[in-house]
């Protein structure tokens, strides 16, 4: 337990900050879906995993990386639409827990399919961006890039929701599901667009993650629980809350991992989450319980 206030500790804190950017991006898509459609996509991390495989194979097939990333984003946006039409729409009126479990079925399907089709071995893109060194600390460029792109994406989504017609419709639906159809907003169309954006965000996260992590079929299980935790901690549906919660959780993980072992970083984060929820069940920034 070499937990000292030295340069390594500072490095851990800063790396936690960079991890937070990625987690915030992942939580954003899930929060958007929940806020608008009122459904938890428990298979969200598995969509990211499929996106990572898509980008991996597109890149290995000779596509330049940026184009491969674009393919991944479009692919997962389409997957989001498919998920909504095939799975969510039939259970839209049943109990919330049934919706959650139905997407749990999708989790099984995607994980099984990935194992069958892509095999169980770890896959690596083989792109090394190097790292930035300063004051005896080192930060990989892929993490810095992830952080920047994630922030930019969040800003773009915010502008879209504030300015565009469909964005305003999305926000309106999330505030009152009953009234908006009477105001002439096509609820089905809004749901489809939201699912596509949610999927697209997962695809973007996938594009950033292939630069940092090896791909394997179970990678979703590593990130999934973390993302749900961040969303609930920030208040399901609250995008700002999710953003701040991502930073809190990432710091717990980064500092905990550097002081103890990696699992303890995660375990402490989960414990912290449960304690906070017992104090504020609606999450840190959730308005309505």
């Amino acid at each position: 337990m070499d937990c000292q206030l030295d340069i390594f500790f500072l490095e851990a804190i800063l790396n936690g900050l960079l991890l937070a950017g990625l987690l915030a991006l992942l939580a954003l898509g899930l929060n958007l879906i929940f806020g608008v459609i009122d459904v938890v996509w428990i298979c969200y991390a598995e969509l990211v995993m499929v996106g990572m495989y898509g980008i991996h194979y597109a890149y290995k097939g000779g596509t330049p990386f940026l184009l491969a990333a674009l393919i991944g984003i479009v692919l997962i946006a389409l997957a989001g639409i498919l998920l909504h039409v095939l799975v969510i729409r039939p259970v839209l009126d049943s109990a919330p827990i049934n919706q959650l479990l139905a997407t749990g079925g999708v989790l099984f399907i995607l994980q099984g399919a990935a194992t069958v089709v892509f095999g169980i071995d770890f896959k690596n893109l083989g792109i090394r961006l190097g790292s930035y060194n300063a004051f005896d600390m080192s930060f990989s460029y892929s993490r810095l890039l992830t952080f920047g792109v994630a922030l930019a994406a969040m800003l773009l989504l915010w502008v879209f929701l504030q300015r565009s017609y469909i964005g305003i419709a999305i926000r309106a639906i999330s505030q009152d599901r009953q009234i908006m159809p009477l105001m002439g907003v096509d609820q089905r169309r809004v749901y489809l667009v939201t699912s596509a954006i949610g999927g697209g965000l997962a695809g973007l996260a996938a594009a950033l993650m292939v630069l940092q992590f090896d791909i394997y079929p179970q990678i979703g299980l590593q990130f999934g629980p973390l993302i749900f935790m961040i969303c609930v901690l920030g208040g399901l549906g609250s995008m700002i809350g999710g953003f701040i919660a991502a930073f809190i959780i990432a710091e717990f993980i980064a500092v905990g991992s550097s002081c103890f072992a990696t699992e303890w970083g995660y375990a402490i984060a989960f414990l912290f989450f449960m304690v906070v929820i017992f104090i504020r069940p609606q999450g840190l920034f959730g308005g309505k319980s």
Partner: protein
Amino acid sequence: MKRITPATIIGVAALLLLPVAVRFAFPAAEKYYLHLLIQILIWSFIYTGWSLMGRFGLTSLGHGAFTGIGAYVMVLLWNYGGITPWIGIPVAVVVSVIVALLVGYPCFHLRIIGHYFALLTLALTEFVRLCIVGLREFTGGSLGTQPARYGDGVSLYALQFEPDRVLSYYVALVLWAIGLYIWWRVDRGMDRYALDAASQDEDAAASVGIDVTREKLKITAISAAMCAVGGAIYAQYQMYIGPDTIAGLGVSLNIVFAVIAGGMWVMLGPTVGAVFTQVLTEVLRVTIQASAPLQKIFGSAVLALDTMIYGLLLILFIIYMPKGILGTILEWREKKARASR
């Protein structure tokens, strides 16, 4: 209770004589079929424990934590303290009930329900799994560990019975019967009506004098205790425990899937779910292993096919058959009986 019908007596007799039937029907593969039956019975017990909460709308994704605590507490006490499972299992039950109450009380007091409850209990599962992996000096980390074998492996003192499959079968059968008895007691008790009311409308239930938090805590404690016992017995039978085989999100989701498939509102629903999932897995495994072309194309990854089919069935069940296999059959029979009257 319904009067004891001839069908019940025949059913009980058949279950008691099943090992004999297996010996005559499959003399070459007796061990394999008994193994399948034992698995079904132990998991049925765990599933029944889960359905006690699930049927009242308390959909927990945290029961992998309780099976894990049950198995690991017992095995660690045995391996490192030499404490017999006769004491180890009660200790494991107490630990998992305490954890259940610690998580349950704030949840029920603050009325955390629906997907908030599911996601919170999911966090509990992950927390317990991470603790198991983190304590790798004792638990063997993600590789898992084994209960130390006592003598030749069959012992009342060590509660080990794995080499004798017929004995294991009867142990599992008794466990399963106890599970059904608990289910039946809950079903007949007043608590059941209180919980039914609470799952429909908490405010209304509270307004007629039901202590909703207390009732929910009671059923949670029973459910967690059953899963802990089930996890411990499973460890004793398998003689191996790993964080992913007896704890963790995978186990939690399997429990939920099996119970939904079987039907969570009828007594034998979880058992039907266990039969269905175990037989499905085995049939798929045997078919795949028998077909050379499939193996050639996909290699060992082909075993993940069952996960895919699980997922697909889970979605279909939720959309088209939310009452599960047994629930739907019983409903259908009742309708037919009413129509013919």
